[in-house]
């Protein structure tokens, strides 16, 4: 164990003045976001920015991305890059459609997990046992997953009433929870449009109104993952396989087995993400339902610095911007422009104080341009609102990316007995 800790210490030596992210910091950050959103809502007059409806939809949009990201987290923490999440998610959507329609909603959830895990198994066998390049295998899994699902869907759902070659008939809903005793008074409070208070009420209301059980399960999986990977010896060993498999092996850890388990679990998470799309975000399997969310989950994980908390924030950001576009359309996104402009100008000032002239100029000019756009227009064209989540992710990554550190042996092939 002592070897492990010292090697981990060696890895994080470089940024000596690194600030630790503690619970108070996180809570302060969340509070800050709320004050900002609330101010923006009042300044721009766009109520959709923090209505409980928007926040509830955000949750539904963020969960599949977060689950896919969790899949990526498990796999990459064990040192296997998983670009095949998309394919495993697609398998999951079909699993949910098939088992959900023919057997029942809970069986659908299990089916989604099972099919995703099969995709994970494929990736695991190729990368861990045969030493195939992780990206190659991931791409292959994506192709196979898509092809297999299209083939199987045409086989099983053509001719089924309400179904077709590219979609399943409706699946029964999973139970959802509403606590009316809390929800209704919170609704009144939200309607008052008070600064910050109403926004917090909206958030709480979103959490107690029509909340699918699967959403709850998904959120608990974040806690579960954190606990397993960072608070158990199993997790320590698994992460050691991603940091330095040779050192792990020298301590008697069966690296191959840990990697296999991690990648199969990764597939199961991605499958569940697909299942969530088919069963909670909509109520049937459709071809093309994932829409690249597997890749976005991967982006959210990188954004979150390969940690569950950061990943959750990334998925939330993505889900939020995606929801805004769907609910308010151009006008809501227009309100968001002001926020982006102000933030960019703030970043510019900060960069200037640190002496980074070029970075400061770039973000300053961008900020001013977006500000001008905000004041000169009434709304963002509908076609362009579609790119909000992607631009946001890109901007955030561009501003924050240097501080990220991925597992040291991530993506490197490993062969048993290579320690030495």
């Amino acid at each position, binding site marked *: 164990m002592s070897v492990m800790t010292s090697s981990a210490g060696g890895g994080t030596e470089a940024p000596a003045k690194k600030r630790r992210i503690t619970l108070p910091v996180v809570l302060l950050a969340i509070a800050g976001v709320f004050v900002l959103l609330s101010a923006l809502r009042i300044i721009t007059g766009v109520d959709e920015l923090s209505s409980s409806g928007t926040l509830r939809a955000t949750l539904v949009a963020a969960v599949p991305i977060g689950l896919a990201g969790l899949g990526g987290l498990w796999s990459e923490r064990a040192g296997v890059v998983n670009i095949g999440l998309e394919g495993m998610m697609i398998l999951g959507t079909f699993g949910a459609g098939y088992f959900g329609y023919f057997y029942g909603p809970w069986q659908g959830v299990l089916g989604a997990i099972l099919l995703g895990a099969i995709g994970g198994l494929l990736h695991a066998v190729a990368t861990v046992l*045969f030493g195939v390049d992780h990206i190659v295998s991931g791409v292959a899994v994506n192709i196979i997953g898509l*092809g297999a699902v299209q083939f199987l869907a045409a086989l099983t759902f053509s001719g089924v009433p309400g179904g077709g070659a590219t979609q399943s008939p409706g699946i029964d809903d999973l139970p959802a929870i509403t606590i009316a005793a809390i929800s209704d008074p919170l609704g009144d409070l939200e309607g008052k449009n008070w600064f910050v208070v109403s926004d917090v009420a909206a958030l709480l209301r979103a959490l107690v109104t029509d909340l699918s059980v699967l959403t709850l399960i998904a959120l608990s999986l974040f806690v579960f993952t954190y606990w397993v990977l960072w608070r158990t010896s199993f997790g320590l060993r698994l992460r050691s396989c991603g940091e330095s498999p040779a050192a792990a092996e020298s301590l008697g850890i069966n690296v191959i087995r840990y990697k296999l388990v991690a990648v199969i679990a990764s597939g199961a998470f991605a499958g569940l993400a697909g299942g969530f799309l088919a069963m909670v975000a909509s109520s049937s399997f459709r071809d093309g339902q994932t829409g690249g969310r597997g890749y976005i989950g991967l982006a959210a994980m990188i954004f979150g610095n390969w940690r569950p908390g950061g990943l959750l924030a990334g998925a939330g950001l993505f889900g939020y911007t995606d929801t805004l576009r769907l609910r308010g359309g151009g006008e809501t996104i227009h309100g968001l422009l002001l926020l982006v402009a102000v933030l960019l100008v703030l970043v510019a000032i900060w960069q200037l104080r640190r002496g980074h002239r070029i970075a400061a100029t770039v973000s300053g000019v961008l900020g001013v341009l977006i500000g001008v756009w905000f004041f000169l227009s009434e709304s963002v064209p509908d076609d362009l609102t579609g790119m909000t989540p992607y631009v946001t992710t890109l901007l955030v990554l561009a501003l924050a*990316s240097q501080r990220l550190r991925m597992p040291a042996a991530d993506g490197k092939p490993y062969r048993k007995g290579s320690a030495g």
Partner: protein
Amino acid sequence: MSDARLKRVALAIGAPALALIIAFAITSLVLILAGDSVIGVWQQILSVPDVRGVTNILNAATVYYLSAVSVAIGFRMNLFNIGVDGQYRIASFVAAIVAGEAWLPGYLNTLLALVAAVLVGALWAGIAGLLRVTRGVSEVISTIMLNAIATAIVAYLLRKAAVDAEGSNITATKDIPEGSWIPGFSLGSDAPNDVYGFIVVAVVVGFVYWLVINRTRFGFDLRASGASESAAIASGIDVKRMVLVSMLLSGAVAGLVGMPILFGDAHNYGSTFQSGLGFAGIAIALLGRNHPVGIALGALLFAFLDEQANPLQILLDVSPDIVKITQGVIVLTVVIAYEVVRRYGVRLEQSLVASALADDDTDDKGAEVKV
């Protein structure tokens, strides 16, 4: 020794062959499980295509080839350009606008549009390259985001630039004047369709790719940076510059991907313009091991499978998507087969060296005894 070399050549050819056989076996297994006619499917897929089919295969392979070369340029540098999709779509759109406006006569117009496509493709990929070298953003993520952004921008601009044909709801750019089309050629007098003339450009691109990567200082620097960044830095290569340049080059080739379709077939950019070519390119580049000839074979194989599977639905009521499973499995099995063969080759070499050493040993001992 020559015996061992012969063995190695046999292994090198055997690997892809073995991979194909395994992929076909797995596909057959899926068909059996699905209860479809295995023999019927293979009879159709492995039948000899007619002239029309061959032309279609060549055309599809041309497009796949350009996409795969674009991806391969990135791979050589350890860069993963998933953004070919967005790059070629935004480039095709701009080229269609430029060519449709016809500011220049005849082929000058074509040339201008091609230059525009290359520049736009390079520019779009360059954003990812710039973010990577200045801000450390992984190109995997940024190119995925840029794909989605390109889709939105093109949809927006297409609506602005579209000319609505009478009684049609297909939005498309202005048609390119006929004098600027790139003529194709037919494979015989009775062929109903033409092979894209652009196939010549694709071959030239493949050759230039080979030349630059394998026969120039730049190509050496590129491969060195891809193989070992620290070694490249130690030998004085500006790795950041190489990342940016190879991303630009990859994007430039990606800009050409849509051109065979634009100038040989569609003649405008509409909402139905073929998408998803970038992802096929990744698989084909992997299949061809980033080698220009290997990529060509991979592109032909993928195009062949696509074309031959098309009639399956009508003939046998089997979904043509079955070949996607085959294609995906081929990518995996080829790589696994190469890896297995490589390990076997290493072992072969080691045992050869060991036995040669053992021989030397006994010789020495013999010599000692003699003395």
